[in-house]
């Protein structure tokens, strides 16, 4: 009796170790392919810096983002005549430090990305799994609803949803998540359809696995690669769309230092003070570009078809 228990235990530890080793090997392999793509590594570094800046915003920012320095209205960046190191990237029309506002703005953009992708991803996975697993009228109904959402240009639908929910950052995030969701549903459903009749799923079903277990533990882990890539792309899309909504006055409201909202406020000064317009947009571009670079790298690293070539 004792002997058999100890053998069982030993087998278990061996199995555990093997599965740990397999995970480690997978990660190593993943990193190998990911790091082959120099752009992706640069993107990852930039993204990490952005996350650090966002987290440490109160420590890094030279000024409070909302304090108005009335004696320094529309002051240019330090390298231009009239600029000073006190306001490295200049000030806006009411004398707020642009660098500090950009630093605090990074919090909003990253927060928007995380929240939107989480809602869209979780919702999309659940709905997609149900559609692909249940088939029949449930599937048809879900996919037609997704077709309807996809029939509208995403920005227009987000604008309309915000009109219903009321302008503001939270509502903008909900609207964007709804608009981005169908992509996840479609991907999940397609992956489930490809996997559901494979031997390992049939084996799990024969072994008595319930529906939920089959959906989430057996099938889902094998559909993750495309979802991860899509999540990265959606992260950058969410940031762009939220900035666009902010720019149109339907997203975060002033004086929030959200980058799109900052651009909207800066619009009337474009021909007088180039810096109030240039820097917020540059911040959006750099962030989105970094994330898209990572996304390209992830696709290369996770796509087995590309690996072989």
């Amino acid at each position, binding site marked *: 009796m004792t002997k058999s228990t100890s053998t069982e235990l030993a087998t278990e530890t061996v199995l555990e170790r093997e599965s740990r080793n397999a995970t480690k090997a997978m990660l190593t392999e993943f990193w190998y392919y990911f790091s082959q793509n120099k752009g992706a590594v640069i993107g990852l570094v930039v993204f990490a810096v952005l996350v650090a800046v966002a987290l440490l915003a109160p420590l890094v920012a030279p000024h409070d983002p909302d304090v108005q320095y009335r004696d320094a209205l529309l002051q240019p960046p330090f390298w231009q005549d009239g600029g000073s190191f006190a306001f490295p990237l200049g000030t806006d029309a009411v004398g707020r430090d642009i660098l500090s506002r950009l630093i605090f703005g990074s919090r909003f953009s990253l927060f928007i990305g995380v929240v939107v992708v989480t809602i869209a991803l979780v919702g999309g996975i659940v709905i997609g799994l149900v559609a692909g697993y249940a088939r029949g009228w449930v599937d048809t109904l879900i996919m037609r609803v997704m077709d309807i959402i996809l*029939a509208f*240009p995403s920005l*227009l639908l987000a604008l309309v949803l915000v009109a219903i929910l009321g302008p503001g950052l939270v509502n903008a995030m909900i609207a964007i998540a709804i608009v981005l969701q169908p992509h996840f549903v479609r991907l999940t459903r397609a992956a489930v359809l490809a996997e559901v009749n494979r031997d390992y799923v049939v084996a799990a079903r024969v072994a008595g696995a319930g529906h939920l277990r089959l959906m989430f533990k057996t099938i889902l882990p094998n559909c993750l690669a495309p979802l991860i890539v899509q999540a990265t792309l959606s992260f950058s899309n969410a940031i762009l769309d939220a900035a666009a909504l902010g720019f149109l006055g339907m997203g975060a409201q002033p004086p929030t230092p959200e980058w799109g909202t900052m651009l909207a406020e800066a619009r009337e000064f474009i*021909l007088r003070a180039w810096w109030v317009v240039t820097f917020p947009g540059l911040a959006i571009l750099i962030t989105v570009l970094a994330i898209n670079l990572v996304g390209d790298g992830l696709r290369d690293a996770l796509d087995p078809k590309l690996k072989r070539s």
Partner: protein
Amino acid sequence: MFRFLIGRLGLLIPTFFGVTLVAFWFIRLLPGDPLDLLAGERGMDPERKAQLMAQMGFDKPWWQQYFDYVINIFHGDLGVSFASKKPVLVEFLTLFPATVELSLCAIIIAICLGIPAGIFAAVKRGSAADQAIMGTALVGYSMPIFWWGLLLIILFSGILQWTPVSGRISLMYFFPQVTGFMLIDSLLSGEKGAFASALSHLILPSIVLATIPLAVIARQTRSAMLEVLGEDYVRTARAKGLSPARVIGLHALRNALIPVITTIGLQVGVLLAGAILTETIFSWPGIGKWLVDSISRRDYFVVQGGLLLIAGIIMVVNLIVDLLYGLINPRIRHN
């Protein structure tokens, strides 16, 4: 082919009714009822309100209202704009050519630059040129176009003073709108300088709107070309001793274009969403600006009608792309 068409239509019809449901519920889900919106902050006395509610059919059960709404759609009645008191469809049709003109110019720029760039990058795979093209494409793809538009205005309208800041044509010119396309109308008018003025107004917005489709088309062309260049028939064509131009231009490109055409079709939605931002920045009098203005004016019948019409256009274009795809690629058609 006929069965293919029927199958596609079968998918389209439920989606169309779904879209009408979305547009229908949009007005009813807004905070406050439509008449409160109509009355604005002055308010309205309850008796008059009840009378108007009955007149506009808002007192009927929702399914009956929806039924009436759909019937009206098929009669071309999409409601009346609060602001201009004109029928929504009439306003849409007046402004739509401006958006079409802008979008057409944008997609022409995107195709004419994107496809050659993608081919070049694929043929020179791994070279500095490839990396530069793909790097630029990724920047374009990541571009917040509303900011890009502002930058171009600063440079070309502000510093260099080459182009005007906004509008479709200089106010100096007056001529009848024959086609609704300013480039053509200005030529037809025979007024000196009108065409140049229209062109100079069009160029910046077109570049802005073309940016993302251009990047997407270049990336898609490159990857489609790379896939095709590895195929046996391309190797055979090379082995036969055909010139590289012939191999790439004829054997490879024709097959690589199939996914690219789908991508181009999918850009219609991107263009219409981009038009919302581009037209707002350049005060371009098209449907994008019209919708944004209507949302901020709370002119909700316009938004409702615009939603329906835009979704309808996208659906029709997608159907056409699907059919084209079926025509070019028999494998799809016979499945």
